[in-house]
């Protein structure tokens, strides 16, 4: 009987998606503890907390935000390659609304007087934020329409906006980098309430996404559509609407990430904002245990941890002294490790080893 119980318990551990990201995060921090002196030092300066750990959290914010949205898309069996481009679009929209002189809008008074004015914004900041997010959601909706009604492969469908998006972002600002002087807007990416303000945005978004998927039927339907869209259709689930939702939400998250990014660098740089972040977001989701390609069961917390793993690796590499150009190679190694860890062979092997251990324990 005890064998049986241990087998069941073992099954539980194996199914737990959080094992891989937690172990990975612990391993990276352990390496830091040994190799990098003072990595865990934290200090308070002017009521702000500083340290490498805080840096990891802060720098991971855009990736984690993207990963939350990407989780739902991947769970439906799709993928969204355009999130980096949507970030750039949202950033451009925000910048042009704060400072629209660039497109030749005739403004009252002396133009030079407002340059460098930390309170100036053409549109009120709440309007700026809402408008940017609305545009981001519209971008996501476009992806969703292509995938669900157009029946286009998600990778191809989102590739369109991935390629076109940066052009659109350039177009919005007339290919000019707009510098943001407004302090209220800059607070999004640079502000502190002991911890960086962007962390509070991440936590709020995570809580919102969790409630939206797990306290409604949306989470179940997303998983169901990912596992078998035909069976979901027969069960009365509107598969198209679920996909529309997933891509729109992913667009929303990309908008939030774009705002964080542009606010922290204070420049609308359509060529650089969110560049290659779609790959980080996808990797974060995969590390978190949601299956790319097949979809199905997803874990938002897993994706968040996955994002932290990526950023922790990156920060640690810098701390150790690895050149920035070599970081991509490290990420490639991570991808390989993740693929191996989630392969069926390794999972079966792990399960068998643990089962044997359980039997031995039960025998003694």
């Amino acid at each position, binding site marked *: 009987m005890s064998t*049986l119980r241990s*087998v*069941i318990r073992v*099954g539980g551990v194996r199914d737990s998606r959080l094992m891989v990201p937690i172990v990975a995060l612990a391993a990276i921090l352990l390496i830091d503890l040994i190799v990098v002196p003072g990595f865990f030092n934290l200090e308070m300066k002017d009521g702000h907390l500083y340290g490498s750990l805080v840096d990891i959290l802060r720098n991971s914010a855009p990736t984690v935000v993207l990963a939350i949205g990407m989780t739902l898309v991947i769970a439906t069996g799709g993928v969204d390659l355009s999130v980096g481009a949507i970030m750039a679009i949202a950033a451009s929209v925000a910048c042009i609304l704060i400072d629209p002189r660039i497109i030749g809008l005739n403004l009252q008074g002396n133009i030079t007087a407002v340059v460098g004015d930390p309170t100036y914004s053409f549109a009120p900041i709440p309007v700026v934020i809402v408008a940017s997010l609305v545009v981001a959601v519209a971008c996501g909706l476009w992806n969703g329409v292509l995938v669900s009604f157009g029946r286009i492969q998600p990778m191809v469908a989102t590739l369109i906006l991935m390629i076109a998006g940066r052009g659109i972002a350039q177009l919005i600002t007339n290919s000019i980098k707009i510098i943001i002087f407004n302090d209220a807007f800059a607070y999004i990416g640079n502000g502190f309430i002991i911890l960086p303000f962007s962390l509070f945005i991440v936590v709020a978004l995570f809580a919102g996404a969790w409630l939206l998927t797990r*306290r*409604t*039927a*949306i989470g*179940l*339907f997303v*998983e*169901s559509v990912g*596992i*078998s869209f*035909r*069976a*979901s*259709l*027969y*069960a*009365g*689930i*509107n598969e198209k609407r679920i996909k529309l939702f997933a891509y729109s939400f992913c667009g929303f998250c990309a908008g939030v990430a774009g705002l964080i990014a542009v606010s922290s660098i204070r420049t609308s740089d359509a060529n650089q904002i969110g560049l290659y972040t779609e790959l980080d977001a996808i990797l974060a989701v995969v590390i978190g245990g949601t299956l790319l390609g097949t979809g*199905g*069961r997803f874990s938002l917390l897993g994706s968040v941890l996955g994002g932290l793993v990526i950023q922790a690796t990156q920060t640690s590499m810098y701390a150790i002294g690895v050149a920035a150009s070599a970081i991509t190679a490290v990420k490639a190694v991570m991808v390989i490790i993740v693929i191996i860890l989630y392969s069926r062979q390794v999972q079966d092997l792990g399960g068998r080893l643990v089962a044997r251990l359980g039997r031995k324990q039960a025998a003694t």
Partner: protein
Amino acid sequence: MTGPATDIVVMENIDKSFPGVHALKQVNFSLARGEIHALVGENGAGKSTLIRVLTGVERPESGTIRLDGVEVTIRSPLHAQSLGISTVYQEVNLCPNLTVAENLLIGRQPMKRRHVDWKTMNRQAREILQGLDIAIDVTQPLGSYSIAIQQMAAIARALVISSAKVLVLDEPTSSLTGHETDQLFRVMRKLRGEGIAIVFITHFLDQVYEVSDRVTVLRNGSVVGVYETAGLPRLTLITLMLGRSLTELDDINRHRIESSQHIGTESLLEAEGVGVFGSIAPFDLVLHAGEVVGFAGLLGSGRTEMAQLLFGIDQPTTGSMTMDGAPIRKFSPIGSIERGVALCPEDRKAEGIVADLTVRENIIMAMQASRGWFRHLSTSDQYAIAERYIKLLNIATPSADQPVKNLSGGNQQKVILARWLATNPRLLILDEPTRGIDVGTKADIQKLVLSLAEEGKSCIFISSELEEVLRTSHRIVVMRDRAKVSEFAGDVDEQELMQAIAGGES
């Protein structure tokens, strides 16, 4: 003839457990050269597990397997193949877009100067199939042939790649027509003549009697006995499988006749000239509350298309439908669920279960879909509903949190039934609800249908087994060539019904 000297496989005291299930208990199984050995039992009796042990998919916890008198440990399906044990599953796992010859010889294609020698390859493939008395064009894609031919190609491949001594056929006939089944049996007999030992798993008892020499009966993970098929009366076999006698079938008949008095006079659903261009010819249909209407017809006669049309998977291109006298405008699954129509689809794996989700989630799914995204059933409500139906339908599962893919076919079917019963439908369409399901569960489902009818629900019962349709239906609609051809009510003459199904003047 079945002495130890001729036994090619001897499995002794095989034990295997899964979480919550003791799947095999001290099972002994022996297989002689040149015999067709049927393996029968209810769902979850342990047939599949035994086969999975024999073919190296699962490792037994204890017990020995001897092959040709030598004790072996079968490590993997590949290892089993190299030992001469080949398996052909219910679903053909070949590549439908490759040619027949490619499918047969892929991996050992004849080469000529570093290029594939297509001529020799096609000739070899033709010869292999001729050995099985099959004459087809091997240069055509496999997918262009019937499932039966595909299955025989799978058998041929099994013979080619491993020079098999033991051939395991797991439910090979469940998607074959009568003629195709005969064809398969001819091949099986021919192989038997060549000294190959065949394990044949099926739910069709007719076929057990038609083709097998011996039969091993499993029940709850134990062997009940091994019998010469010819000397075993059918009723005894059923009793052995179930562990109880089957007077229930008579009960069902009586039940049907009694319940026919409760059929309402007002129509629940009326279809007038409804059809889908290119898929099903326009038909009229009237359903009453409390009535079970059987759809009979051959595979591909349009039964499933009719069901899908009534449920709103397909949109009608002509005609109109009314429910409770009101015209139906919203043709979609969710629209149907709102009207109180439910469909248990034919293809349980692809259209029914959502494999990775739990039993609980599968059960509440349609109910939740009808409530929409935001009126979320609380977890405790979900458990309450799931537990109620697990009990009501006797679903064998360790818990409501078990992924539904871990359940046996019959129990998966019950989960789908539970999903629809939870929506409290007024019209329940069951498309082949008993396919691949053991005799006991079949009877359970038939009884359930009739009790639902007594509660005033209307049912459409679709089945390839005529006997079953006759036993459960108050009225029978016959389909042929994608059109409704006739309707039978009251005491139906089986002969006449068969004629209607087959068509023609004969």
